[in-house]
């Protein structure tokens, strides 16, 4: 399994995260739709880590699964954390000025979604998708 870490500290890093994810998705033979979904989800979570978490990093892991490839992304920030996860995942809820669709939307775009957070302990979001829709 190969892994790569991308730091998220500026707006420019969000572009870098998208490029890194698109790169592994293309190499993992993700279809155009699967690529776009994964990249968009990564973009949302990277922006969350930057805007709400004050920056962080994402680990990009790639592993073969059956005939396809699984890409797993782990977003870690050390920001204030989230007190009410259910509320944060509700569409339309936002603490900032966004649309409030980022977290819930990202969850709908990927196969697996896991979030861990507590006030004062930062936030870790893990998502993964598999090419070819082989394993769901």
């Amino acid at each position, binding site marked *: 399994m190969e892994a790569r870490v991308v730091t998220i500290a500026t707006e420019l890093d969000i572009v870098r995260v998208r490029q890194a994810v698109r790169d592994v998705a293309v190499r993992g033979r993700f279809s155009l739709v699967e690529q776009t979904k994964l990249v968009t989800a990564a973009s949302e979570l990277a922006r969350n880590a930057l805007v709400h978490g004050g920056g962080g990093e994402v680990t990009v892991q790639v592993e073969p699964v059956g005939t396809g490839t699984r890409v797993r992304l782990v977003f870690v920030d050390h920001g204030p954390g989230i007190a009410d996860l259910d509320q944060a995942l509700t569409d339309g809820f936002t603490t900032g000025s966004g649309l409030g669709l980022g977290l819930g939307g*990202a969850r709908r775009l990927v196969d697996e979604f896991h979030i861990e957070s507590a006030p004062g302990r930062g936030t870790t979001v893990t998502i993964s998708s598999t090419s070819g829709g082989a394993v769901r």
Partner: protein
Amino acid sequence: MAMTFDQNANDDVADFLLEHEERITEDWLRVGFFAQHGSQDVEQARADCRAVLAAIADAARSGRAHDPAAPGFLQVRALLGDLVAMRTRHGESPSQTALELSRLKQPVLDLWTRHRGNEANHVAHTVLLSTALDTLRLAVVETALSAGADIIAYQQQQLMELSTPVIKLWDNVLAVPLIGTLDSARSQVAMESLLQAIVDHQAAVAILDITGVPTIDTMVAQHLLKTAMAARLMGAECVISGIRPQIAQTMVQLGIELGEVNTRGTLADALAYALRRIGLSVNRAETA
């Protein structure tokens, strides 16, 4: 690290370089760097060699053989810059150029050993000579790096300028082709120039084409919605075009609703729609 050599040594080395100018030039032309990539004529290469040799001699004489900012080296900056630029155009990296330059050293040191190798203080002189030639390398790499920085600054400027044109497609119909990453700053520029253009052209329909935007996440969608809303407040209808199938599917799952904003698959569809809105129809011309 500051290196000091006594003035006699400095003068000795400088004199030696000038004295054997002819011979060193011939050696250097054989090694390359000055006379590569064919197109350059030999006389020019010879003149370049002599200029660089004089520069090294000058730096050595002034006791600054270790300093790439010595007056002697500064005089040949432009020349070195040209030589490096020529190599860069042929796809060579600065480190390759530096490697190439290191081959200029051997013939000079050989020549020195042959002529002065049995003098008592020849080791100190050799070190000085070697230092001066290393500094030439440093000067060339510095030149190459600053040239790279210049190119980056120039390209950034160009990118800003080409970012967001507003195009008049027809009377009262405008289009903004958005390309690349839409961050907050660029969205703001796009919105401002579109709103101004709506006033200037009394536009009734404004088309935002996102064919060239690879990722539409919630932030980009929000910017698009805000722009559409602002356009509507000014009395122009906004149409978003260039939504590719994969983008459409992703937007649906993200939960983005464009509400009353009209969308079309291609810019052509959006133009057809806009023409209808302003009461025009396109007919096939009658052929005689």
